[in-house]
C-alpha cells in the first residue's frame, strides 16, 4: 500500500465513531456468515443425523442454552426461527441488522449515502421476514437474499467509502469478524467430526467436509488445491493458514495487520499493544503448527485464536478510549 500524505486540514475521527465503524462491519459480516451456514446446512448437510447438523449452528455461536430455552429440538424450522426471525435472540440476523443499522445511523454523517440507503432498505427487508417466508420452499431464497444484501453492502462500501481513518477501522472490523467466524465454523466441525476417534477418517465424512468448505465459500478452491480428497490437517491448514483463501484466519489477520500499520503510519495512532498481540497470534498460524494440532488439540487452539481475536478488538478500542 502507498502511504498518502495526510491533507493540510486535519480531519479528526471521533473515538466513539471509530468503534461504531468496527461494529458496523462486524454486524454486516455476521449476517453473511449466518446466511451461509444456514444455507449450507439446509442444502448439503441432509445426512442421517439431521438434528446434529442443525444443532451445530447454535453450537458455533455458543447459543445452546438460549436455544433450548425456546425450542425442544433442532430442526430447520426451529433453528430457522431462532436465527432468522427471533428479534429477542442477540445472534439472529434480526439483531445483527438492527445493531448494524444503529451503528450506521451513528455514522450517518461519515459513511456514504449509498451505504446508508442500502442498509436501510436491507433492514426493512429483513424485518419483513415472517414464519411463512422461511418454509422449506423459501429457505434458500431467504438465505440468498441475506447473502446478496450483505455482499451488496460490502461492494458499496468498497466503491464509495472514503478511505480515511474510518475506512481502516471498518476494514479491521470486517477482517476480525471473518477470522472469528472461520474459527467457529472449523471448531464445530472438528467437534463433531474429528475428536471422537483417533483415526480421523475424512472419507467417511466427505459430505461434512464438503459442507464446511461450502459454508466458508472455499469448496471449489479446496478441490483445486487438494484434488485427492479430504484430510483434517489439510482442511485445517486451508482454513487457518492459506493466505489465498479469502476467509482464512491467516489472510484476515494479515489484513488486520496492514490496516493497523496504516493507522500508525498515516494517522500516528498508537497501535503497539494490538500489533504485538497480532504478531504473537500470527506466529502460531503456521502449517506445521496447525497440522500437528489438527489431530486432537485443534479445538483448544481454536478457542485460543478466538479469545485473541476478541482481545485484539479490545486492544484497538483501548487505544482511543480515555
Amino acid at each position: 500500500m502507498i502511504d498518502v500524505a495526510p491533507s493540510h486540514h486535519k480531519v479528526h475521527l471521533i473515538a466513539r465513531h471509530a468503534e461504531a465503524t468496527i461494529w458496523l462491519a462486524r454486524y454486516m459480516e455476521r449476517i453473511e456468515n449466518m446466511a451461509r451456514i444456514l444455507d449450507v446446512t439446509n442444502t448439503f448437510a441432509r445426512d442421517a443425523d439431521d438434528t446434529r447438523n442443525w444443532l451445530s449452528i447454535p453450537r458455533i455461536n455458543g447459543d445452546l442454552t438460549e436455544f433450548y430455552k425456546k425450542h425442544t429440538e433442532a430442526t430447520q424450522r426451529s433453528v430457522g426461527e431462532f436465527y432468522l426471525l427471533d428479534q429477542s435472540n442477540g445472534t439472529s440476523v434480526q439483531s445483527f441488522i438492527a445493531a448494524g443499522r444503529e451503528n450506521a445511523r451513528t455514522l450517518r454523517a461519515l459513511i456514504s449515502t449509498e451505504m446508508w440507503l442500502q442498509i436501510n432498505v436491507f433492514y426493512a427487508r429483513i424485518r419483513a421476514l415472517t414464519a411463512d417466508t422461511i418454509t422449506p420452499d423459501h429457505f434458500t431464497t431467504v438465505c440468498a437474499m441475506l447473502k446478496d444484501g450483505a455482499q451488496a453492502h460490502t461492494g458499496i462500501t468498497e466503491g464509495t467509502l472514503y478511505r480515511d481513518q474510518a475506512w481502516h477501522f471498518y476494514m479491521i472490523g470486517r477482517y476480525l469478524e471473518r477470522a472469528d467466524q472461520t474459527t467457529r465454523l472449523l471448531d464445530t466441525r472438528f467437534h463433531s467430526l474429528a475428536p471422537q476417534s483417533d483415526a480421523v477418517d475424512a472419507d467417511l465424512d466427505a459430505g461434512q467436509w464438503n459442507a464446511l468448505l461450502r459454508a466458508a465459500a472455499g469448496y471449489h478452491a479446496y478441490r483445486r488445491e487438494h484434488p485427492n480428497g479430504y484430510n483434517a490437517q489439510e482442511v485445517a491448514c486451508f482454513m487457518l493458514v492459506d493466505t489465498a483463501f479469502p476467509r482464512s484466519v491467516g489472510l484476515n489477520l494479515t489484513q488486520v495487520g496492514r490496516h493497523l500499520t496504516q493507522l500508525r503510519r498515516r494517522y500516528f495512532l498508537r497501535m503497539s499493544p494490538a500489533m504485538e498481540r497480532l504478531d504473537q497470534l500470527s506466529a502460531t498460524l503456521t502449517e506445521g503448527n496447525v497440522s500437528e494440532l489438527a489431530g486432537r488439540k485443534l479445538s483448544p487452539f481454536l478457542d485460543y485464536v478466538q479469545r485473541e481475536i476478541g482481545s485484539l478488538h479490545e486492544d484497538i478500542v483501548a487505544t482511543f478510549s480515555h
Partner: protein
Amino acid sequence: MQAGGAFQSQSQGQSQLQPHGTMQGYDPQLFFCEMLRPGQPQHPTLTLLMSRLAALPIESLRRRAQDAERDLLERGITFTVYSDATAIDRILPFDLIPRVITPAEWHQIETGVIQRVRALNMFLRDIYHERKILADKIVPAELVLKNAGYCQAMVGFNVPFNTYVHVCGTDIVRDETGAFRVLEDNARTPSGVAYVVENRHMSLRVMSDLMTSLRVRGVDEYGLRLHNAMAEIAPTGVDDPQVVVLSPGIFNSAYFEHVFLAREMGVPLVEGRDLTVEQGKVWMRTTSGLAQVHTIYRRIGDDFLDPDAFNPDSMLGVRGLIEAWRHGTVAIANAVGTGVADDKAIYAYMPRIIKYYLSEEPILQNVETRICAEPDALAYTLDHLHELVVKPVAESGGYGLLIGPHATKAELADFRALLRADPSNYISQPTLKLSVSPTLCADGVKPRHVDLRPFAVTGKDTWVLPGGLTRVALRPGSLVVNSSQGGGSKDTWVLA
C-alpha cells in the same frame, strides 16, 4: 412593496390564470393562491409552470408521489418515533407541487428577515447589557426579566459581532390579500432546513420535467454558508477553527437534520459524551486523543447544555461548557438565552422593537396580536373567542392552541376558563385566512394552506437561504401545518 415594478408593466391587464387539465376544478375560493396569485401581476414562469402541471396526467402525479414517498423512507429522510420496544420511522409527507416565490416577493422576504434578525440581535444585546428598551418602557421590563427564556448567565457577557441568533427561522404566512405576515420568530434551534435541501433534491428526481429550463435559485449553499458563519464566530486567533454539530444523539426525532448539518458543513457530529472541558477549553475525544473545539453548533436546548450551569440532571450536555464559553475559548451557536426573543409575548412587541433600534418601519408585518396579560386585550379576547386564535406563549409545535372558528361551544367554554385562570400565559390573534397552494390530494389537486420558514444565517452579516421550508396542512381546511399535526412540506422555488 411586494409587486415587482419590472413585472407590473409587463403583465398588467392580462387575464388571470385559469385552472385547466389536471388543475381543472381547482378553486381556492377566497384564499390567496400561491400559484394563481389573484390581483398580482402575472409572472411568465408561473404561467409556464401552471401549464406544465396542468398537462401532467393525475396518474403520473400519483406515481411520482409514490416514488417520492418510498424514496424518503429508503433514504431515511425521516424522524423516528420511539415507543417501548419499537422504533418507527416516519416521513414528513412531501407534496410534489412546488410553492413558487417571485423575485419581488423574495426581495421583501429577504430584506424583511434580515431586518428582523438585526433587531432581534440588538434587542438581545440590549436586554443583557444596558436594558435601554426596558428603561424607555417600549417593552415591559417584567415581561423580559421574568421570562423563562431570560438567562442570568448572559448578563454582561459579550458575543462576537453581537450576534446571538446565528440561525433564525422566521415563520411567515400570507393573508387573503396576499400580504406576508410574520407568525413567529424561531431564534433558539429552528429545525427544518434539511428538508429545504432534500425537498429540492426530491423535486429534481421526480419532477425534473417540470423544472426544465426554469430559473430557480439553488439551495445547496447552506452548509458552506453556515460553516463560514461558524468559523467567523470562533475565538480570534484560530487559523482553521474546528466546528462541530452537537446533537442529543440518534434517538432524537430531528437526528436526520443533525446528520445533514454535519455532512453539509463537513464537520464531526458529536454528542455531549464526545466533548470534555479541560484547562478552560473544550475538547473532543478523537482516535488520536483530545482535539480542541472552537465553535459548537448545538442542537440541544439551553437547559441541557451544561449540567453545571443549568439542569444538573442533564446527561446530554457538557460539564463546564458555559464556563469555557464565558472565558472566550469556544463559541456556541445559537447563543444561550435567545429564547426570550422568540417568546410569543415578546413577538407582539417586535414591530416596536424594530422601530426602536433601527428607526425603520417593519418590512414584514406581524399578525395583529393581543397580549392577554393586558386587561383590555383579555376582555376583547374573551368577547371574541369564537373568531380568534389563542396561543399559549410558552408552547411550540401547535399544541395547546385554540382556533375559535373551529371550536365547539364546549371547547370554547373550557378554553375561556383556562384563559381566565392564567391570562398572562396567552396571546390572541385574528383567525388568518392563510394562503393556499395547489396540493395533490386523494380527490385531485386541491388548495391546501401553507406557511413559509426561511432560514437566516448570521455570523458577521446575515444571509438568507433563497427558499425556505413550505409547510402544508394536508387535511382539508386545516390551518395547522406542524408535522406533528398532520402537516407535510413542499419544495420552495425562489425564481431568479
